């Protein structure tokens, strides 16, 4: 009873937050609504006893990705009028995409779920079940190659992103810490022998 109540409460907030993302006039508010919808979907996953995925969703998307998103949105100060200008121009395309998506969802539900209303909730796992352990076991045994491949691709993306931004204009007066550290005494200090008896 409580589970279904929580499910409907979280889903309601999720749908409202998702609506808020596209309807709010201020881009920062949109980003914050997106944060709220991420949190709500994490809570829905928690209801399904997928605590690892839920926590990772919050850790990665809410804790890191959305922070950078907000960072950029706040810095850019996007004017809402400019965004609104394109609305009527892009409306047909948007409607087309929406119709396709809805049609697909309806088709899947109609085709796969003829008896969807008789589907029962999955049995709750026993108390000793650990979602994290189960996922780790699968990732590092059965899917280890795919997992490693994904890791290598991500590493490649990091290297690519860094090398794209590593441009050094000549003539910039920024400090080079390696150079500063590598300075030797001889470069900076010169001992001068002054003859005290010599008078000017």
């Amino acid at each position: 009873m409580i589970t279904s109540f929580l499910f409907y409460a979280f889903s309601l907030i999720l749908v409202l937050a998702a609506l808020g993302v596209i309807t709010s006039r201020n881009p920062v508010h949109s980003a914050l609504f997106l944060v709220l919808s991420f949190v709500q979907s994490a809570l829905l996953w928690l209801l399904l006893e997928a605590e690892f995925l839920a926590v990772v969703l919050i850790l990665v998307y809410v804790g890191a990705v959305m922070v950078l998103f907000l960072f950029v949105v706040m810095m850019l100060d996007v004017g809402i009028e400019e965004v609104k200008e394109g609305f009527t121009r892009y409306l047909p395309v948007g409607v087309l995409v929406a119709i396709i998506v809805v049609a697909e969802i309806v088709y899947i539900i109609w085709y796969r779920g003829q008896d969807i209303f008789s589907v029962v909730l999955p049995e709750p796992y026993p108390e000793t079940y650990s979602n994290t352990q189960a996922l780790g076991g699968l990732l590092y045994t059965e899917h280890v190659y795919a997992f490693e491949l994904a890791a290598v691709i991500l590493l490649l993306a990091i290297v690519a992103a860094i090398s794209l931004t590593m441009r050094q204009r000549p003539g910039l007066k920024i400090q080079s810490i390696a150079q500063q550290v590598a300075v030797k005494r001889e470069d900076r200090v010169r001992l001068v022998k002054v003859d005290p008896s010599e008078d000017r």
Partner: protein
Amino acid sequence: MTAILVQLDRLLDFFGLPDLIHYTLFNGIKIIIVLLPLIITVAYFTYAERKIIGFMQNRLGPNRVGWGGLLQPFADVIKMLLKEVLIPSNSNRFLFLLAPVLSLTTALAAWAVVPFDNEFVIADIDAGLLYILAVTSLGVYGVILAGWASNSKYAFLGAMRSAAQIIAYEIAMGFALVGVLMASGSLNLGNIVEAQAGTSVLNWFVWPLFPLFLVYFISGVAETNRAPFDVAEGESEIVAGFHVEYSGIAFGLFFLGEYANMILITALTTLFFFGGWLSPFSEVSALEGSFLSEPSFAWLALKMSFFMFCFLWFRATFPRYRYDQIMRLGWKVFIPITIVWIVVEGIMVVAKVGPWSV
């Protein structure tokens, strides 16, 4: 403590309440048992800070209110409660008021999985370490929203600095915790402490994971925006940073959140690297049977106090980092150190060297 909880459980049983109300009440009382002492600790931590830094700088610190200034924290709280909360013009009222609340709730929510001895913990969950990482990573929203909603350039600068800094140090922190996870083989905080139990102090993770401990603690200082990493406040450059527009209890909530976070970092450092509530003298035969050789909350509190002292010590000792140096330290020093040490640790685990081999 556990005995009291068992009695409480029985008492609630006696009233024959429905399960839902029973558990809500029971956990509510557990939460109060954790939060009330925490808030009092925060109050006296601010007092200790002013006193200790005072002594380090050859001053007396607060000594007017109460005996030796002991009532100073309460005077401060009453002052803050009575002051007006000003809301700047053209600011976003809702977000402006939401920000301090967010910053406090995330600071307090993380305490849910922190065990205080081998029995007492509010929520004994499997993915405790991940939960801590996730919840502490939410704390930055309080700072960013405060800076943005204030409609002030100083607050905004502070928020931007803080966002970049916290993201940078979170990665190093997460990697350091991967080392702890590899050593203990568990994400549950209680199990992590139990994995450090053994014949002597040498079983604590601080020795095999020493570089990770340094990275974790320093990143913790940076994550809580404390000196020498307090550029988000940077009073000599941007007035008070993200909370420059806040007054009264709205500012007080930020303050409370910051100190609760500091205490949380000390608790986590103790649990992950210094054996938590375990006694350092567990196998000393001369102390056999005395309370000194027993694992207890007192040990946790003692170890935490040392790290809390370190926080204040750092503040009185180090000058503030320059911003590019903070970024350099986080990205180019700490992250490589942690990655190298995770590889070293992997080799140690495979070769069965170290305390986890037994």
